[in-house]
């Protein structure tokens, strides 16, 4: 082991050096161009949607927990009803916002479907 180990370290160092220099080169070329701009913009849009989905998950989790705590006898009926309704109102609002955010893509999606149908019609 002690004979092989130094060479192993050298090989890993060499590979890391090559990888590092390659990544640096890629970084410089990307920095000098603006090809990636479209990707970043699309990402920003999906980020907003992802945040809403996370919010929805958190609310669903909380609704489940409140129901569980009520079933386990930790919450009285009155407290449960109050909390449950409040959380449901928030969840409805998030579902509404999710639909709104999807609305922006509706036109684009419809156009893509129409194009696909048209293409498949031509092929047929």
């Amino acid at each position, binding site marked *: 082991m002690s004979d092989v180990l130094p060479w192993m370290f050298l090989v*890993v160092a060499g590979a890391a050096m090559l990888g590092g220099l390659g990544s640096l080169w890629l970084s410089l070329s990307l*920095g000098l161009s603006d090809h990636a701009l479209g990707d970043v913009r699309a990402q920003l849009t999906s980020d907003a949607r992802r945040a809403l989905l996370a919010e929805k998950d958190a609310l669903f989790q909380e609704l489940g927990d409140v129901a569980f705590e009520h079933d*386990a006898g930790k919450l009285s009926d009155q407290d449960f009803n109050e909390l449950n309704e409040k959380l449901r109102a928030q969840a*409805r609002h998030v579902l509404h916002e999710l639909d709104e955010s999807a609305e922006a893509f509706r036109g684009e999606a419809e156009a893509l479907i129409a194009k696909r149908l048209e293409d498949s019609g031509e092929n047929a």
Partner: protein
Amino acid sequence: MPAFDIPFFGTLILCLILVSASYTMAMAMGAGSGRPHLLPSARWGTYATCAFVLVAVCVLAYAFQVHDFRIRYVARYSDRSMPWWYLIASLWGGQDGSLLWWAFLLSGYTFFATRWLRGRHTELQPWILATLMSILIFFIVLMLFSANPFATYIRTTPGDGEGLNPLLQNYWMAIHPPSLYMGFVGWSVPFAILIAALVTGRLGNEWVRAARLWAMIAWTFLSLGLLLGCLWSYEELGWGGYWAWDPVENASFLPWLVGTAYLHSVLIQERRHMMRVWNVFLLALTFVMTIFGTFLTRSGLIASVHSFARSDIGQYFVWYLGFLIIGIALLMIWRLPKLKADNEIESLVSREFAFLLNNWVLLGMMVFVLIATTFPLLSEWLRGEEVTVGPGFYNKWMVPLGLILLFLAGLGPLVAWRKATGSNLLRAMMFPLGVGVAVAVLQFLFGARLGFPPIVEPTEIYDTATGTILAWTAAVAPGVSFATCSFVLASVGQEFVRGVRVRMRKGEGAFTALVHLVSKGRRRYGGYIVHVGVVFMFIGFTGAAYDVERESALRPGETMAIGSHTIRYDQPRMEADPNKRMIFTDMTLLDDDGKPKGEVAPAKFIYRTHPQMPTTEVAIRSRPAEDVYVIMSTVDPSTRRGTFRVIIRPLVAWIWFGGIVLLLGAILSMWPTARELVREREAAPRSFRFSPATAVVGLAIVVATMLALVGVASAQTDGSSSLHAGSVVINDPVERQLFGRLLCQCGDCERLPLDTCACGWADDKRSEIRESLAAGVDPTKIQESYRAEFGAKALAIPSDKGLDRALWAVPIASMVLAVGLIIMLGRRWQRRGEELQTAATATAPGELRYDSRLDEELERYEEDT
């Protein structure tokens, strides 16, 4: 000697890392300041920087393996006789290398965080990368200007190295520092996410969710590191304990305390959109504490047994800490309007308020430890007097706080979120309280007979009313602790039973219900399992109140009795390997009939490179009820007569078992849900996606299994001979109390009290003091004359008057003030909460149509998770 110039190449790589990290930071900041097309460039720059750090580590590791003693660090921490695994451990065995190791782990975290960020948090991402790069830059600058691991000797190159400190030639050393560093460095990622949130003003729950997993990973590794540190101390330093409240130990405990407070408090923000300022403060403080801890470890400003890590790099850390604190404060002030809470606490009887109390205790403990750790420095600066704050101070003050925290660990799960009615809470508490009281009564009746009386003999650290109160608090603590442990176990058990019952009402069998309960609520039940682990650890800590110790000089064939054990000394035995000579003393544990029931072999190791530092190997026979801990103090080669110190340590094994349970709970709580994994695949179906949770789970399982398999039954190296070369005999409680307050002043045994220190100087001093006691001199007078002779620093615990009193008065005052503030604010929040409640969230008419869809989605969610 290798043909190419490793020192020059290594330094060149460090420069390359600095350039690459600075360039990446500039690109990332550009991307965050309105030029988003620079983001991919910053990401690739990050990968490049991480790769260069890997090159630097590999080059240093290569230098160790080929014994390139041109490099000062290699020559100081290795020699030709060391096996390859210790040559690898030498990478972090000294100051300069451990800084490179810090940078390496940071780059590892950065690499995986960058992979994870792909397609996520696009607005936060540039600032996360910039912050991580800035931290890396600090460590690289530190290495280049003050602690270069590739620095060479100015004159001749030595033919062989000095070798790794014998204390560090131990298998725990191979995993304890990396794990602890993983914990320290791990907090960089959540901190970077926090800074990104503050800079961009995206201070909702997005950053909290992004930071959650990384904070859990860091906390788990920090816990593991602390646990392994305890094991190392128990087996390696050989004084019989596992935690000495050494400044370097405290340095790793501080971020753990604040980080634990954060992990509890952040749940309130996730659930209730509250406590935003507080969570920002806690996370920032956790990171600052990791840097402060590294500063304490590295600067050597405060006397510590970890003296192998002293240097002059403290000033860099002071500047960096100053920069961090001012920067964070300014960012927080700037973003204060965006940190306003959406909700208020609705009841003082709620999980939220229990978490606030938990934060209060944890931060109170942090303030105590912080002030006590830095008090020697403060005292020297303020009044020019050196003082020492020994373990006795911490042990007395931390016990009541720890017990309050333990009680809250049992109370928290019983209280509902938002609001719990008094009657509900009382009903929930009946069973756990009943169990706690029952255990207290049973211990009162039968404890003494079983060797575990509920009240132990009080020992005072002060001759004042405070000292008496503390002594009695500690005296009743074992009984209170066992009762509280039972309360918490019953409380957690009850939560599982209640949960299973709820599921069983839906038609599930008991086992299926349990499996579903845990799998669908991993975070909640993982947290409960962590609490169970903490309980087991407390059981182990409590066992320290029942330690029995005895010292005997034996000839081969003679026996000594201690507790329920008889130990026979059989013979000395000599062995050798290329690295060291080893003198073992074979001993046999006998049962009541005189038949062997186990063997132990305490030893002395004399390392080739450190002949002046023979180490004492302790032998430990570990069982759930107690450990038999045997130290060979001396052995005479001509007469074969040996002096042995034996300590019976009840329940210690529960600490390690509790640690494993705690780790398993932590792993369970961060195990990715099927839903999360599906989303990962949806996000990038064709490419490899890094799942940090899976990675940490794998790593933690490996380490936990290792802990379980290795156990603690093997003999390990003791501390250096300068710490424990002789023997200690304590005749009565008066001696124990007095010796515990006086520190050895031989010059080598820093921070060791006379009731522990085994050097010759301490032995002479003990004899001298015994003569005074026999002559009827009051122990207080003896203590005063000791102080007059050697100064205030010779006392293990500062006095209870003047500025010394600030040591406990300041934390207590701040805790009282804080609890008053919490209750006052809680009431105000409660009033506002009630007002908000009456003006409940209004639903827009258009949103009512989502009601049935909500039910459908909720049902699907329940099935998916």
